[in-house]
């Protein structure tokens, strides 16, 4: 499968997700069918594309967006099954659809080549756990904004706090696994496990921000609003780590800029 197939598979997946999101509010029974079908369509494309390019499709920004769509829809669906919030599913579907659409409208140069530094068994787990973590933390951010609104209206929702804290723990767990696998890989490829390369520095910043949230939550004496606002802030830092680092002047010599 090539990017040509994506031109009709992606709209199909997006349509299925949008149907699922709509059903979550109206016909809850149809959600599973639409959602699973949408995830399977994108999953089939990723698998076929992987076979075609004969390397893990995780190198270009366009390729990492495929995984983000895939995991975001998957994580959103699982979270919906677990907690039953329709808005959560709708948001995950919109985000997943948006990233698939970016690949449709703005295809970047896709290359078959994988540079030697990326040819490692660390490559797939490293990128996969990060995409999974980003997806989960995106949902956590949304939940934090919802909680902030509830506090603004007078009362926080303890169930939502449970949900939120669960997501941050799980998302942070994956974030740490991404960081540690990256460090182990760096030792093998670049001679040192931590060189404060700009991408590493920003990964550290992101991790510190989420750790800050968890440690603030340990004590109820801190303003709940301040604590909750660290999550959107942390997610903004995460987005810079993922998408923005290559645009920063400090990243001129980064070894993490590939395409």
């Amino acid at each position, binding site marked *: 499968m090539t990017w040509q197939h994506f031109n009709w598979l992606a709209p199909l997946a997006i349509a299925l997700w949008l149907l699922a999101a709509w059903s979550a509010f109206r016909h809850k029974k149809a959600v599973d069918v639409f959602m699973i079908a949408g995830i399977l369509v994108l999953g089939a494309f990723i698998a076929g594309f992987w076979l075609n390019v004969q390397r893990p499709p995780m190198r270009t920004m366009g390729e990492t967006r495929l995984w983000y769509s895939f995991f975001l829809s998957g994580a959103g669906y699982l979270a919906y099954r677990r907690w039953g919030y329709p808005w959560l599913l709708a948001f995950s579907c919109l985000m997943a659809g948006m990233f698939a659409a970016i690949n449709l409208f703005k295809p970047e140069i896709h290359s078959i080549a994988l540079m*030697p530094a990326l040819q490692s068994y660390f490559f797939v787990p490293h990128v996969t756990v990060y995409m999974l973590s980003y997806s989960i933390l995106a949902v956590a951010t949304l939940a934090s904004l919802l909680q902030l609104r509830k506090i603004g209206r007078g009362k926080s929702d303890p169930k939502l706090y449970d949900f939120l*804290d669960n997501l941050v723990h799980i998302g942070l*767990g994956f974030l*740490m*696994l991404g960081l540690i696998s990256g460090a182990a890989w760096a030792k093998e490829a670049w001679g*040192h496990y931590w060189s404060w390369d700009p991408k590493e520095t920003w990964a550290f910043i992101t991790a*510190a921000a989420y750790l800050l949230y968890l440690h603030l939550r340990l004590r109820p004496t801190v303003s709940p609003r301040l604590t909750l606002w660290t999550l959107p802030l942390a997610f903004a830092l995460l987005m*810079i780590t993922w998408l923005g680092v290559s645009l920063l002047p400090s990243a001129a010599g980064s070894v993490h800029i590939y395409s």
Partner: protein
Amino acid sequence: MDKKLLWRSPWGYRESLIIVAALTVGGWLMQLIAGPFNFYLLHRPVNYAVGGLIILLAFAAVPLRNRPLVKWLSGGPLAVSLLAALLVLSLIMGLTPQMQKQPPHGDFFVRLGFTQVTDSWAFVLVYGLTLLSLAMVIARRLFRPGRRVLFFLNHAGLWLVLAAGGFGAADRERHVMHVTEGQVEWRVYAEDKQVLELPLAIRLDDFDMTEYPARLAVIDRTSGRPLPESNPHFFQIDMEQPEGRLAGWEVTLQEYLPQAVTAGAEGYQASPMPAATQAVRVIARETSGSGAGGGAIRQGWVSGGNRFLPVSPLMLDDHHVLVMTQPEPRSFTSKVKVFTQAGQEREAVIEVNKPLSIGGWMIYQFGYDNQSGRMSNYSSFELVYDPWLYPALAGMLMWALGSLGLIYRGRGAGGEK
């Protein structure tokens, strides 16, 4: 929160934030007065002593765990303040281009250490207090009943990584060695251009590299830019998908030679010579052309050339040329024999992502003569000695297990509260 007087025990967030902020500002002042922190001050055995002292303090404080100072040092408010300080310092690092060497007469921010944060006093002081605070909370929790395996894995793992990374920085050695094919080398240049003799030697038996198939592009004859200019198209050479479109031309691959040399007037033939280049024979058909037969048809060889063979483009019309891009490397490999002073000998093939570990050193494929590519007659290696590597790896392993625990347990991973 009821208004407790500042500095009355127990210390909370306000006191912690003030102290950590003072430590950071103090570090900046120190930097202005004394210049950057010299990591070689921590050279063995000083780092062992400092690390040992931190551990000793942490355990000595366990019986005093109800004293206000101990409670504060191992408590949540200080942890939050330290995380906030590390966040600010690493943000400075993430936004300011970091330099290997500081210019002697930089502006105010350069003198504060912003261009080399890891070597600045503020960073070192906050990092040090973090190590102490972490060690104290770990020691305190060790002697308290309750669920603590995950807590221990995450915090002690992080402590080991931070300690080994920080203290290890003073003992780590890194050199780049250039070895000519057929020669034995054991000398490297130090930073001050002095020749250093290392306790190990490398003999380079062979260097080789392989390339991916190149890509084709249509370029503008006058500007030399790939077309369409707003969003250039590239066509990956792949004989299983020999047809593609490039900026108004339909390109069909007929024959692809991964290793070719020129033959005859404008042809190529396969040859495994080291100086060989990639060449492809194509037919290009103009898609926008009108009339019965469609547009113009061009055919011929296209090659990107190299240092020894010429570039061979295919002229399409007055404005367009079909060219081959420079191929991307697939692998670099160096066949070597390594000798250590202790008498060890090892033959190995060193590649990117496949370093050789011998006698406490790790040897990495680092570079080659870019201009000559496969013809390079030398290979360079990065040699790294890090006696603190194993504690760091042990810490990473503990931390990874702790992360799995976070994923499995969710918010229950926080332990009893």
